[in-house]
């Protein structure tokens, strides 16, 4: 029986997986999984490597702020920079126009490394840190060619080069006024069929981005079970392809029960929330409040081929724009308690000159 069938012992190794690091946009992960970058280096770290290939990432939108667009833009740009074909569906009349707002890779480390160069020239080299000076040279060179990195820092103020947008790799679909999901389903199926899972050495990876799937602008938005059916079908198709799908949806527009069903279908579930401007209470509670654009919550992390849950250090992160250009995610830090605001330590100073004549006046 054993000779005619493939090896079924639990010790068989899958050698084909080892050769995929040839593609810079793909990273091997545990349990036979691979990662692609979300386009936000901090988010990749939080999720333990990036978005798992074959997973469905869902983002719950906040009606008050378009932060989910930040995630979508970086996700899409990262794919284009790595030559990964893209299918983008949105409820706008002209989804193609959105491509003009995609950010370009920049380097948030540019300033630091050039500063180090000038320090070096001053001739002060610390004897046991020669390695540091060697590494600087390497870093500076690799930043020139952002394509070779797994994950780029995207400069939200600089639009993506035309060369990335002109290829045939981008497909756009408008879901506005669609009376049902059949057309979208077929486009997704055709797109995903280009990335079958096989044991070939260099897998082509695809990215699928669906914006505001249950938005009221779409004609099908009242067909609850059809939408669920679509998401389930999409999840199944993505699972058997070398692709990642990111679907954002305004969860508050769904009934709580249906919203939970959507959440359960996600492999990775994130939500974004707006931070009110000039909220004095929040300002006293959190450090760096002024720089915060919003909050990101990680509810679920994809568990493909494993049963061990992902235990994160924190589930809520603040979204900040570093130098107003680069998206960073930081853990929330509680601000130190302000001792001077209380009345017990009055500003009037020492015992002898206290203006308040208390009972216990020493």
């Amino acid at each position, binding site marked *: *029986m054993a000779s005619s*069938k493939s090896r*079924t*012992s*639990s010790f068989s190794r899958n050698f084909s997986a080892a050769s995929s690091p040839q593609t810079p946009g793909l990273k091997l992960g545990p*349990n*036979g999984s691979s990662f692609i970058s979300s386009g936000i280096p901090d988010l990749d770290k939080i999720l333990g490597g990036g978005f798992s290939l074959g997973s469905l990432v869902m983002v719950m939108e906040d009606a008050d702020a378009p932060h989910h667009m930040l995630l979508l833009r970086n996700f899409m740009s990262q794919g284009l920079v790595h030559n990964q074909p893209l299918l983008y569906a949105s409820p706008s009349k002209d989804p193609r126009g959105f491509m003009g707002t995609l950010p370009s890779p920049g380097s948030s480390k540019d300033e630091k490394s050039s500063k180090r160069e000038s320090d070096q020239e001053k001739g002060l080299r610390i004897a046991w840190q020669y390695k540091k000076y060697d590494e600087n040279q390497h870093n500076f060179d690799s930043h020139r060619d952002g394509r070779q990195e797994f994950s780029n820092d995207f400069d939200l103020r600089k639009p993506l080069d035309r060369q990335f947008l002109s290829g045939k790799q981008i497909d756009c679909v408008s879901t506005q006024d669609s009376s049902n999901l059949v057309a979208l389903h077929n486009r997704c199926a055709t797109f995903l069929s280009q990335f079958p899972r096989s044991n070939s050495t260099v897998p082509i990876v695809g990215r699928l981005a669906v914006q505001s799937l249950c938005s009221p602008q779409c004609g099908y938005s009242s067909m*609850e*079970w*059809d939408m*669920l*059916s679509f998401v*389930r*079908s999409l*999840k*199944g198709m993505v*699972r*058997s392809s070398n692709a990642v799908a990111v679907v954002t949806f305004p969860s508050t527009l769904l*009934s*709580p*029960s249906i919203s*939970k*069903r959507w*959440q*359960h*279908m996600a492999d990775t*579930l994130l939500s974004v929330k707006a931070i009110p401007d000039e909220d004095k209470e929040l300002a006293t509670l959190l450090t760096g409040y002024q720089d915060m654009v919003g909050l990101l919550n990680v*509810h*679920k992390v994809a*568990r*493909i*081929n*494993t*049963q*061990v*849950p992902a*235990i*994160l250090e924190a*589930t809520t992160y603040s979204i900040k724009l570093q130098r107003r250009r680069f998206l960073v995610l930081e853990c929330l830090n509680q601000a130190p308690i302000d001792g001077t605001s209380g009345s017990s330590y009055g500003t009037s100073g020492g015992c002898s000159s206290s203006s308040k004549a208390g009972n216990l006046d020493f």
Partner: protein
Amino acid sequence: MEHGASPNLLDEAMGLLAGQVVLLEDSVEISASFVLHHLLKRSLSPQSSNVVVFLAFNHPFSHYDRILRKLGCNLVAQRDNNRFFFFDMLMLECPDGDREKTSGGGLIALYGKIQKVISALPQERKNSVIIMIDDVSLMEVAAKGSTNLVIDFLHYCDTLTSELGCSLVVLNHEDIYSSTERPSLILQMEYLAAVVIKAGPLATGLAADVHGQLTVLNRGIYDCQGSRYKSSNFHFKVRENSVEYFYPGSRT
């Protein structure tokens, strides 16, 4: 259960799996799929004579195969030995409305296939079949929201438990139903089940050492005073190769 290995808290609370309906409940925060994997491994162990029919709506075969391998169970070999029957339901779509009854598609056809598999088994195995469903909420989506079709299907499977002594292990997400006005599906399942295992988060939040808590309600066993069904509660930590179960605060 394995001869010689000390039973863990979950096995003790559940008792033997024989001709019963077991309901696993979980939520977005904490998944109970590790309990399903544990029961699958237990049922396919060399000491037991069970046959497992697995209806997978959630993950493909490769996912379960990798996980069970780490737990020490080879699903491919069990499949080849006709002890493990895997139905990949990821893309199952039930036909609409009235056509369901006449065209034979969807859940009725599925039940027919299960019956066929069971009747083809050798006589001594017919009474020790375990049907596992991962998970029922996706079955509802496949049935386009016709909860009645799903309830009917579960009732059909339940008749197998009474006629043939088969067991039914079903996973569902209770947080989907907690906000509905008439949570009929989950209530019916809780009623049918002899054992209800609910996985939930700790009241104190996330922890690296304790992943959550399990509450097991076993209607087959009365508690010490004999006045009500036995209910157990304990914590768990999930690893690749095993799961640890321990009473709160007793982890060394």
